């Protein structure tokens, strides 16, 4: 509540100062107007603000700061002051911009704290919903206080600062192997699915308009196609925000999330193409232009990816040499990833694709090259920034909705849009899944399809795109804005709220009335481990001929180039070390001729030594269950999404992996020590002859476990 009052105070103070000065030119029209004069191609690039970088003067670009010319302010305060020395001065204009930005960030953060006070509430309602509601409330407050709406989600701010933060975080921490395993499905949904949605929605809306359901005005087919294009793209921000609270299985998550990232290319191209069609006038569109559109799509997507990969290589290469400047390592990462985004924007390629692939590409090498502290810094900073950006986006979505002057309501349009996007998404997903299941290793079930179609959320990207439209060329802009607001709110709030219960409801109902017995608990966990192991043996997720080839190429060329020398050679060192260790241990065995008892962990594997404890205590059921639940190792495929804005999932899984790994390696060591021991008992001559062979075999055996160690050294876990 204090946050709110703080905001109120700031708002009122702000209003007061703006009123003092000459009427600040209302900001949004300026933004739109300056978008147009730069020529026909500018809307292709995201909004490039003209007043960017005006020092001292409130920046019109960011809608948070009303455009109050500071000179006016200064003069008025001077006039008020009169002569003489003023002890304390009101330097509002001087600190205005950063003050307002900082205050907004503070409000957003305080809001987050307040939400989490009520645990029950936060589990039921996703954070994005609450943020939008908060935005609505704030917007209403500001509107009432000042009768005009100076704050809005500014597309420039959004595309240049807020979106890259989120996408950068997503791309950098994207689980690469999962992503590439499902790349076919992701691409299909992103390209074919988005195109299908866009065209169907556009044409159907047009048809509905012809049928008279939608109101008057001269809206052409192009307008509707344009609208269809921007409303049909699944939004990465919304998907992360909602899915991270839902915990669907990782395959499902990666498909929806990957789709939301990769459909950027399609959206960009469609948007550009239709904007130019609309400006040129529908009568002047030739078939050649359609082909240009297709070519444009290929260039935008492939170009964007290439830009991203180039930056990934540069980044990985740079981090190879940062050993002496550890403190600024994170800076390189942030800068280069951001530059990847901006460079793609510069060439009007797909910026999201660029940033995503930059993150995916560089992750492996960068994580290996930089220091542990830098890794932590990067992780924390990216998460923090992305979290704040997300919060701001949702709050501003709420605020922007309240400004009635920006939109016009048409019930027919709104209702039909909602219906169409839901229907076409479901149909599209069903159709594509049917097609994909012919080729996929693990088919996508009906439940997956329901979650996928329900999870196709629209968000701030659509909103920003619609606000960017030029009112003169697209007459229906206001109606589109209203519709987009409703659609975004509906998907984020309603679908966000209901997706969790839906997911729970769709699972096979288990009889959870009875508590599982200890036997069941243990054995079920054992089954999970067995299944995981069998999946690994049968090569279910790992079987790719091409992956093997890629890993060879990577090992022989890329890693040599991009990894630090010490890291690259580390694995070989480790192997040598282990070899020596084992050789020593074996020689000890030979002399002692008993099983070596492991002392390190206090666990004794020697059967003879474990004596039966007389009169073992019988624990309470509860106690035993408690111990089991706390300590049973979890199987590897845990159903958890990889992204969480709230928690860093560290430690637990790594600890488990480390323990299990050590234990397994030790067991293997034991087992071939024992085979070696048995061999000693056989005929001497046979032993001699076989010794050569068995030595080689033991090298093999000792090699293979150690090969497993090499990845662990890099501090990262197997993908």
């Amino acid at each position, binding site marked *: 509540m204090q946050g709110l009052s703080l905001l109120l105070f700031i708002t009122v103070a702000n209003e007061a100062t703006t009123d003092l000065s000459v009427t600040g030119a209302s900001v949004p029209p300026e933004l739109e107007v300056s978008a147009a004069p730069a020529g026909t191609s500018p809307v292709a690039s995201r909004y490039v603000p003209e007043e960017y970088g005006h020092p001292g003067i409130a920046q019109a670009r960011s809608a948070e700061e009303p455009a109050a010319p500071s000179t006016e302010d200064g003069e008025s305060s001077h006039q008020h002051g009169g002569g003489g020395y003023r002890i304390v001065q009101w330097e509002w204009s001087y600190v205005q911009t950063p003050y307002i930005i900082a205050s907004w960030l503070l409000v957003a953060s305080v809001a987050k704290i307040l939400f989490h006070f009520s645990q029950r509430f936060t589990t039921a309602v996703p954070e994005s919903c609450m943020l939008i509601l908060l935005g609505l409330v704030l917007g209403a407050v500001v509107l009432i206080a000042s009768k005009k709406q100076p704050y809005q989600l500014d597309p420039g701010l959004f595309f240049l600062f807020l979106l890259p933060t989120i996408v950068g975080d997503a791309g950098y921490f994207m689980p690469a192997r999962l992503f590439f395993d499902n790349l076919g499905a992701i691409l299909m949904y992103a390209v074919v699915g988005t195109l299908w949605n866009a065209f169907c929605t556009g044409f159907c809306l047009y048809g509905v308009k012809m049928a008279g359901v939608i109101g008057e005005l001269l809206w052409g087919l192009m307008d509707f196609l344009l609208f269809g294009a921007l409303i049909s793209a699944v939004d990465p921000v919304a998907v992360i925000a909602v899915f991270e609270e839902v915990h669907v299985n990782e395959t499902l998550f990666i498909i929806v999330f990957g789709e939301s990232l990769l459909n950027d290319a399609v959206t960009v191209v469609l948007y550009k193409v239709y904007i130019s069609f609309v400006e040129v006038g529908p009568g002047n569109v030739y078939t050649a232009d359609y082909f240009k559109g297709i070519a444009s799509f290929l260039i935008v997507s492939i170009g964007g990816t290439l830009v991203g990969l180039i930056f990934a290589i540069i980044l990985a290469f740079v981090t190879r040499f940062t050993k002496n400047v550890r403190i600024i390592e994170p800076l390189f990462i942030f800068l280069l990833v951001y530059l990847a985004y901006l460079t793609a924007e510069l060439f009007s390629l797909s910026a999201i694709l660029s940033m995503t692939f930059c993150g995916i590409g560089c992750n492996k090498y960068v994580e290996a090259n930089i220091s542990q502290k830098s890794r932590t810094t990067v992780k924390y900073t990216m998460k923090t920034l992305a979290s704040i950006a997300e919060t701001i986006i949702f709050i501003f979505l709420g605020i922007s909705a309240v400004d009635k002057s920006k939109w016009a309501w048409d019930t027919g349009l709104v209702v039909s849009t909602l219906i169409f996007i839901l229907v076409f998404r479901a149909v599209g997903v069903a159709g594509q899944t049917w097609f994909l299941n012919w080729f996929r*290793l*693990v088919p996508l079930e009906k439940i997956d399809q329901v979650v996928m179609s329900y999870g196709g959320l629209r968000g701030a990207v659509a909103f920003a795109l619609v606000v960017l439209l030029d009112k003169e060329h697209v007459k229906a802009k206001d109606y589109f804005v209203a519709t987009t607001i409703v659609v975004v709110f509906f998907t984020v709030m309603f679908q966000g709220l209901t997706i969790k219960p839906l997911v729970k409801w769709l699972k096979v109902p288990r*009889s959870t009335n*009875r508590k599982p017995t*200890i*036997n*069941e608990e*243990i*054995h*079920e*966990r*054992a*089954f*999970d481990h*067995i*299944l*995981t*192991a*069998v*999946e*690994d*043996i*049968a*090569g*279910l997720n*790992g*079987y790719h001929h091409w992956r*093997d080839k890629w890993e060879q190429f990577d090992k022989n060329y890329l890693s040599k180039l991009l990894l630090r020398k010490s890291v690259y050679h580390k694995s070989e060192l480790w192997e040598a070390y282990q070899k020596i260790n084992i050789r020593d241990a074996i020689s000890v065995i030979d002399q002692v001729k008993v099983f070596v008892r492991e002392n390190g*962990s*206090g*666990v004794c594997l020697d*059967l003879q030594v*474990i004596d*039966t404890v007389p009169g*073992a*205590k*019988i*624990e309470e*059921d509860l106690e*035993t269950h408690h*111990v*089991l639940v*706390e*300590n*049973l*190792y979890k199987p*590897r495929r845990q159903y958890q999404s990889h992204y969480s804005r709230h928690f860093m999932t560290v430690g637990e899984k790594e600890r*488990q*992996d480390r323990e299990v*790994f050590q*234990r*397994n390696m030790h067991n*293997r060591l034991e*087992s071939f020590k024992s085979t070696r021991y048995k061999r000693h008992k056989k005929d001497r001559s046979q032993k001699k002859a076989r010794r050569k062979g068995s030595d080689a075999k033991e090298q*093999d*055996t000792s090699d*293979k476990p150690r*090969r*497993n160690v090499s990845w662990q050294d890099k501090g990262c876990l*197997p993908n």
Partner: protein
Amino acid sequence: MGSTSSTLLKIPNVEVLMQETGFSPAHIIRLHDRFKALDKEGRGHLCPQDFGAIKELAMNPIGDRIIGAFFSPGKETVDFHTFVKILAHFRPVDKDRPKEPNSPEPINSRSNKLKFAFQLYDQDKDGKISRDELLKVLRSMLGMQVTEEQLESIADRTIQEADLDRDEAISFEEFRKSLEKVNIDHKMSIRFLR
């Protein structure tokens, strides 16, 4: 694909294999490719080291036991037939398979799945899970911070729950009975291998 049938022909007794396990030709081929990928030295059979090369298995608490399950007692190699037969345990149960009274039980029946799991516990193959065997399994599945005392009490409790004939060990029948409420078809099947 034209290579499909030719690959199939290269595998000896493939008809019998498909009949016994219920795998489709496509699956057999996939598994054959996987077998060849694991068998790096092209010997035509697998040994424990080949399994050890699968790095994910090193992260599995009972990974080594499962590897052991592939090798029949006394044998040190796994040929393709055995490989496929073991994997066939994890096929989802065919609900619409006609129940012929005289045919042997399919490999992926509920009972056979349970037998496979039982063998993982019962390392000395005496048909019973003794307290020590149970302790070993528990030790590998539980984290390091569980003390010996806790471990032993859990083991005792487990045996107490399941042991009906009071012989301080769990026989296969007792094992099966303790899991009668668990949906084994669901818990021990891999969707893909349908």
